[in-house]
């Protein structure tokens, strides 16, 4: 028998997984045939996000701890990134990067990127002039965050085809439908090793000639060991690549499905703040966090005991639609009060790049709605990417009547 969760993973349901969530939530903590536990209700997800008995370090599973990729001096296996680590290592590593990205060390850094983001957005939309059919994903939602993360990290934009391939493979390894957890992690380690090798060359270059980018900051301040620098850079590069693209594309799709909201945003750019938050609840780019969690002890929750050693899957997107927490949860309503969504997770692993994603998406949606004339969906639903974890359109084709000037 197929469980609701397995049905949800089925690519056939990618366009509307939400229809399955009420059924999924009927068992808030549901044991799967493979022994993992799927958690789908808001209260239980929040509780487990803050439960110190839940580990993000898959090395707690012996079969993963023992994975060794074939020895290759040129591309050594990287240590797990900080989102796949537990305290105290997690806290230390995250703080070392945060020092150069946000408070306390660099509180204004992200806000200071706004003018450059506006420039990139303007250029990308200018590039659509003269066309009647555009792809929001390829023409805009992908290149924007990639350019931003490349400039922030200090990775040359022209190398994009190279690391885009690795990034896609790595993200694919989060997809439970593509193999066993061991097979997928084996592939992930191998892919990250190649990406790490590439980043190591860059790190050397930045050490010799530092710029004002994050990679330069990490290698020059010397706090973080080189293998961790490479893991961290790989994490940020991939996350910067594969998440915001979905938020922007899901955003345009949702706005076009709710023309009154789109119109209001066109009239009142300040509305974008609430639109973005509601998108993070209603159409989040991450339906389940990629790093699986494991129980370090028996955990009693919602009448079920998750046994020690079990894999735990948190379906954040389902928690976001939980009627016990959000009135009328399937309604897209940016005026919603008390919108304490799970779009960026919660607890110590709360999305590191959240401020960047918020800012990019707010500026992007504001400018797209303002400048695109008469945008219409060519296909609804659009074709989706394969992975159920990072859910978003593969392409989002729009017909437009024109593009307004930048100002």
């Amino acid at each position, binding site marked *: 028998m197929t469980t609701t969760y397995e049905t949800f993973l089925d690519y056939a349901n990618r366009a509307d997984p939400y229809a399955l969530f009420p059924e999924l939530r009927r068992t808030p903590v549901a044991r799967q045939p493979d022994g993992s536990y799927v958690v789908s209700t808001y209260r239980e997800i929040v509780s487990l996000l803050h439960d110190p*008995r839940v580990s993000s*370090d898959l090395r707690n599973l012996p079969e993963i701890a023992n994975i060794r990729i074939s020895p290759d001096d040129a591309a050594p296996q990287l240590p797990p990134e900080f989102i796949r680590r537990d305290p105290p290592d997690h806290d230390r590593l995250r*703080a070392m990067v945060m020092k150069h990205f946000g408070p306390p060390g660099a509180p204004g850094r992200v806000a200071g990127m706004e003018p450059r983001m506006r420039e990139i957005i303007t250029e990308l939309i200018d590039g659509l002039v003269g066309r009647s059919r555009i792809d929001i994903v390829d023409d805009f939602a992908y290149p924007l965050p990639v350019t931003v993360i490349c400039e922030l990290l200090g990775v040359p934009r022209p190398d994009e085809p190279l690391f885009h391939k690795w990034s896609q493979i790595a993200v694919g390894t989060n997809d439970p439908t593509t193999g066993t957890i061991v097979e997928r992690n084996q592939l992930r380690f191998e892919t990250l090793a190649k990406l790490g090798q590439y980043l190591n060359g860059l790190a050397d270059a930045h050490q010799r000639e530092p710029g004002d980018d994050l990679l330069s900051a990490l290698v020059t301040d010397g706090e973080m060991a080189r293998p961790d620098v490479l893991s961290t850079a790989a994490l940020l590069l991939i996350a910067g690549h594969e998440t915001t693209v979905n938020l922007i594309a899901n955003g345009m799709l949702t706005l076009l499905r709710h023309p009154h909201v789109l119109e209001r945003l066109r009239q009142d750019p300040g509305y974008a*703040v609430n639109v973005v938050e509601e998108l993070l609840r209603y159409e989040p780019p991450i339906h389940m966090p990629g790093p699986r969690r494991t129980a370090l002890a028996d955990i009693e929750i919602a009448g079920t005991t998750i046994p020690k050693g079990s894999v735990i899957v948190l379906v954040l997107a389902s928690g976001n639609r939980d009627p016990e927490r959000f009135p009328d949860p399937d309604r897209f309503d940016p005026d919603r009060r008390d919108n*304490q969504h799970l779009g960026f997770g919660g*607890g110590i692993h709360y999305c590191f790049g959240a401020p960047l994603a*918020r800012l990019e998406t707010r500026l992007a949606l504001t400018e797209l709605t303002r400048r695109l004339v008469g945008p219409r969906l060519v296909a609804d639903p659009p074709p989706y990417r394969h992975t159920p974890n990072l859910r978003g359109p593969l392409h989002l084709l729009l017909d437009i009547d024109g593009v307004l000037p930048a100002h």
Partner: protein
Amino acid sequence: MRVVVDLTKCQGYGQCVFAAPDVFRMPHHETLMYELDSDETKRDQVLRAAAACPVRALLLDEEITERQEKTSAGDTGVGRIVIVGASLAGLRAAATLRREGYAGKLTLIGDEQGEPYDRPPLSKQVLSGQIAAADTMLPRRDQLDAEWIRGLAAVGLDLAARQVQLADGRTVGYDRLLIATGVRARPWPDAQEAALDGVTVLRSRQDAAELRRRLAARPRVLVIGGGFTGSEIASVCRELDLPVTVAERGPAPLVGALGGVVGRIAADLQRENGVDLRCGVTVTALEGDREGRLRRARLSDGSVLDVDLAVAALGTVRNVEWLEGSGLAAGAWGVGCDAGCRAFDVNGIVCDDVFVAGDVARFPHPVYGYQFLTLEHWGNAVSQAHVAAHNMISPSGRLRPHLSLPVFWSAQFGVNIKSVGVPTFADEVAIVQGSVEEHKFVAVYGHRGRITAAVTFDEAMWLDFYRDLIERAAPFPPDFAMVGRSAPPHAVPAEIPARIPAIHDATVMVTGHNPDERRATLVSAGTT
């Protein structure tokens, strides 16, 4: 644009700083400092910060937009509500009344001039000079539709006539009364010494402005009392690179609230930050020069300190004098009430029309053996005011109990200290996560094998987990495997100092022989 952060909710995600770096600052790992009243140019930043907060902890102006339909207020015949005490608890109660549909007359009486303000920043960003004492106003509640009586104290209460007497001789009638008069700083006990130029306390906005002015002159500072207020003042002094001595009667700072084990960690924190911390001593005399300026302090160990400024941080005195002779069970211990916030009269019987909330309330907490607690916490003022207001306009069958666990926080020496539960209701304590050496850890308190409290130093994100354990009466010590734990927890005595409850100050006589005539009379309430 005004904003107040509910720091009981804040978990230190820092999203407000990213969104509004001109308004919010996180100078260390988890402590949040911010402007409460920023100019209109920063309005968009503040709105973005409020939307980005993962726990929705930012409170802005004009929040009462959703009003319930007129509810039970009509059924209970309440047409006049008077709130005495127009600070946090009073204001929050008023907002709840309106939000829950109360449409009758609402009067707020406060003895301070000006709009209600938020006190926690006074010992932090105001003292350090980041914001002015005047810029601490609580967010506006424009739709309160209330009559304000400001700068005028309530001086008496007539329970039979349902009237509050004001200092100017007027009376204000009520159908329901909320007492939220709070506390004031306990002054230095020697009146002559207290009058010296350079001897101060910190409680009100004026106190904070005065203390800030004096700190700006870079004095040598003595803080008398190592509780939370005293420790925060010492922390700001060190931030300003001022020499500061803390004289604490107990064996370590914060002992009264957190016990000896965590107190010693707080002591290390103070010393590492350059505080001249002296424990187990009292200040026996403050001496001035001929101009009446403070010059020296004498300590019980015989030492003499040359100081220019002494801040008495000796705790608080409850504002209950106005209730003397009213027939309520009010005294040095506060105003007694049940878990539904209904005040006790002197006989210990609840009144149906007088309610109590905030720092002045003394209420039984079921989770803590039904012991009567007084809690001088921001979060308690908010949650208790909410319950009191709800119950004031609800029929007796729909009363809510005030069951929320106490939560408080303190920012000192770059560390965000948070607590849930009642740490003094404990016999043992264990460090269960993190590292004491790095001042980043979780301490869990237990009483007879049950978890009763948890205290975090820069680990606020885990606090709710422990709150749930307390609510489930989970066994102590929590011995399951956890992230951030290197060894099984080792429970040690919590070293909670014995305390004589203020209620012992009450002298009550019982008169009458016939069961219908027997009455209690409060002879001394220990208020003087």
